[in-house]
């Protein structure tokens, strides 16, 4: 008799979801699904509001990556105004996004994921968290927390608040960077470089040893990758154009504009999840599966354009013997991106224009339909607004990074389930090895479910085992 295992809710990710594992008559895995069970409806209640409010409203979608929404909303606003923002404003927006990528990746690696690596997959779940890490390796935990603090403080120095800073506006930013803040950033950079280099050495050592087997199980499959790249093909996070590459490193589509996203991105809907399933339309659904985020950004770019980060990128490509296609390597990619961000921040701090006070362009409504894009920590983020002649929002479409990894997350869950669940008979419980790894499989993508459904929630663990007849056989909760 076939059964289904359901994990609900899932821990140490942002938002609320559950996992169902469907078993066949022999007790092996036939399918697995990652359900997102939140709903908020941001796109609806933005209607009728002035477009100038969109940064403030959409930033409230998330408390972890509000900067991503602030930037995408401001860039969409720039296009509605049809203005070119002052060069310093663009540099400052870039600085905030680099700080955001740093703090979010530090949160993902040190606070959320490293307890699995450092304490062991099968260690006590009650201690397999950041507090357990503080007990086991206080120096690393402190360094990780301070790295995140660095990113958060840069955001605060620019926008006066760490979270939901009302700082990016259509036409630029509201306040310039003070010389005092520039100096603070410069003073803290060396320590931040030390921390990420420490983490890189530690993690690379584990990829060669304790974590070697995970690379082949945690989302190792071919797919497309999508991300922004600069005009010169270099790593990009704020502007540039969109590029799709495949698992062999071939460029599938290049020089795509966010304005035309509807021509190459489709959004499928499944009845069992509030999270849509974006796909690359030329390949159809679900064959048009693509991944976004740190690994995708590193895969679509030719190079990073920063010395230390490029050395690590080459190391990653050597490790994978080509294009890294395992989602477990998102963790490595995240660390490389932190290094990239720190190098870019260093370069921006050395730019004499960075403290200029010309940071805002003014204009009225000049375009009624605009799409803004930015690279959020979890991947490419699109904001699409249609406004009336006066600038009141008529419709909104938000395509969120986590949503674009939805197909990949489902595929990863299935792959892990097939690896760890075999021949489950009636009355047998869910294997611990699976329980301890499946959440980590999802966590590779560092999903932000509040963003992706534009919804809020908590996420402990809930798994259900369901038979072939659809009946619930067993379930497990973990707060």
């Amino acid at each position: 008799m076939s059964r289904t295992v359901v994990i609900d809710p899932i821990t140490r990710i942002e938002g609320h979801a559950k996992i169902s594992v469907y078993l066949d008559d022999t007790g092996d895995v036939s399918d697995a699904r990652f359900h997102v069970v939140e709903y908020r409806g941001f796109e609806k209640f933005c209607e009728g509001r002035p477009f100038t409010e969109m940064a403030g409203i959409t930033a409230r979608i998330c408390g972890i990556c509000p900067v991503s929404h602030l930037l995408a909303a401001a860039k969409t606003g720039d296009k509605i105004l049809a203005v070119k923002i002052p060069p310093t404003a663009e540099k400052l927006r870039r600085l905030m996004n680099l700080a955001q990528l740093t703090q979010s990746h530090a949160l993902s690696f040190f606070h959320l994921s490293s307890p699995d690596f450092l304490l062991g997959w099968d260690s006590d779940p009650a201690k397999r968290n950041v507090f357990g890490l503080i007990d086991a390796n206080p120096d690393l935990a402190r360094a990780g927390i301070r790295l995140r603090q660095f990113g958060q403080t840069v955001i605060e120095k620019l926008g006066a608040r760490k979270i939901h800073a009302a700082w990016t506006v259509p036409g630029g930013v509201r306040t310039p960077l003070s010389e005092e803040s520039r100096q603070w950033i410069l003073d803290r950079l060396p320590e931040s470089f030390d921390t990420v280099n420490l983490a890189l050495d530690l993690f690379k050592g584990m990829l060669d040893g304790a974590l070697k087997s995970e690379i082949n199980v945690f989302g190792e499959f071919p797919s497309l990758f999508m991300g922004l790249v600069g005009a010169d093909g270099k790593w990009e996070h704020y502007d540039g154009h969109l590029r799709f590459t495949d698992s062999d490193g071939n460029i599938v589509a290049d020089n795509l504009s966010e304005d035309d996203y509807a021509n190459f991105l489709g959004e499928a809907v499944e009845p069992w999840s509030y999270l849509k399933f974006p796909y690359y339309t030329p390949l159809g659904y679900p064959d048009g599966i693509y991944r976004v985020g740190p690994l995708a950004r590193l895969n679509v770019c030719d190079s990073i354009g920063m010395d230390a980060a490029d050395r690590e990128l080459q190391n990653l490509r050597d490790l994978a013997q080509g294009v890294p296609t395992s989602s477990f390597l998102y963790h490595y990619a995240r660390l490389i991106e932190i290094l990239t961000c720190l190098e870019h921040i260093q370069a921006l701090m050395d730019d004499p224009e960075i403290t200029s006070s010309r940071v805002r362009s003014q204009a009225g409504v000049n375009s009624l339909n605009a799409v803004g894009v930015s690279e959020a920590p979890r991947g490419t983020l699109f904001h699409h607004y249609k406004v009336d002649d006066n600038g009141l929002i008529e419709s909104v479409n938000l395509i969120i990074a986590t949503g674009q990894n939805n197909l990949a997350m489902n595929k990863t869950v299935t792959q892990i389930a097939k690896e760890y669940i075999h021949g489950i008979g009636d009355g047998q419980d869910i294997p611990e090895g699976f329980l301890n790894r499946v959440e980590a499989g999802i966590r590779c993508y560092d999903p932000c479910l509040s963003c992706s459904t534009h919804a809020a929630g908590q996420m402990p663990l809930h798994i259900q085992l369901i038979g072939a007849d659809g009946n619930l056989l067993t379930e497990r909760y973990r707060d």
Partner: protein
Amino acid sequence: MSVVTLKIDGVDVAIAAGSSVMQAAQEASVEIPRLCYLEGLSTVGSCRLCVVEIAGINKLLPACTTEVREGMDVTTQSPKLQDYRRMVLELLFGEGNHVCAICVANGNCELQDMAIAVGMDHSRFPYRFPDRKADLSHTQFGIDHNRCILCTRCVRVCDEIEGAHVWDVSQRGEFCHITSGLDQPWGDVDACTACGKCVDACPTGAIFRKNDTTGEKVGDREKLEFLVKARENREWVR
């Protein structure tokens, strides 16, 4: 000019006959919460936030529209008044759609200030979430009816100081709203001189400059009082 004497919170005050209790309180440096009252404009007593207790009168009276009388004994602060004022504010918040986090007036809003002053940390009344619109048809300014508390400062400042009379109050009860011209989009009202006095007078983020984003609105309310006194005294020194 005859003068009357009265007590405000036990303090003796002498003020010109015909003055309001609100003016007498200001003379005595006593702050009375208010929203519809704005120095330099006529008084309407619509917000009921400035209600005070007067010895010998068994109902609460608004300080802004109550004239001083010889020997009056006025109390501006008491638990009963605090309760009433808090209730008034809870009803104002419940009646509209006030979302401070994204409001242009966040941090510079008299409704916020009053809520803090009376200790309103939550509302005991359910929010109505009315379906109200914003009008951005004016080239420089916008009005968001979600944030309007119907204090009518804009109506009065436009009529009494600017002399353009763009604004009026339309309909009644839950449908009551501020209207421009003959219920036209603001941008179509020829009478509007785009002086911006209504932006300065508005106590909330209901009327704002179009490029303002969260917390960027700064209303220069003292400018309006200055204009009135400058015209009266023929002195334009601020």
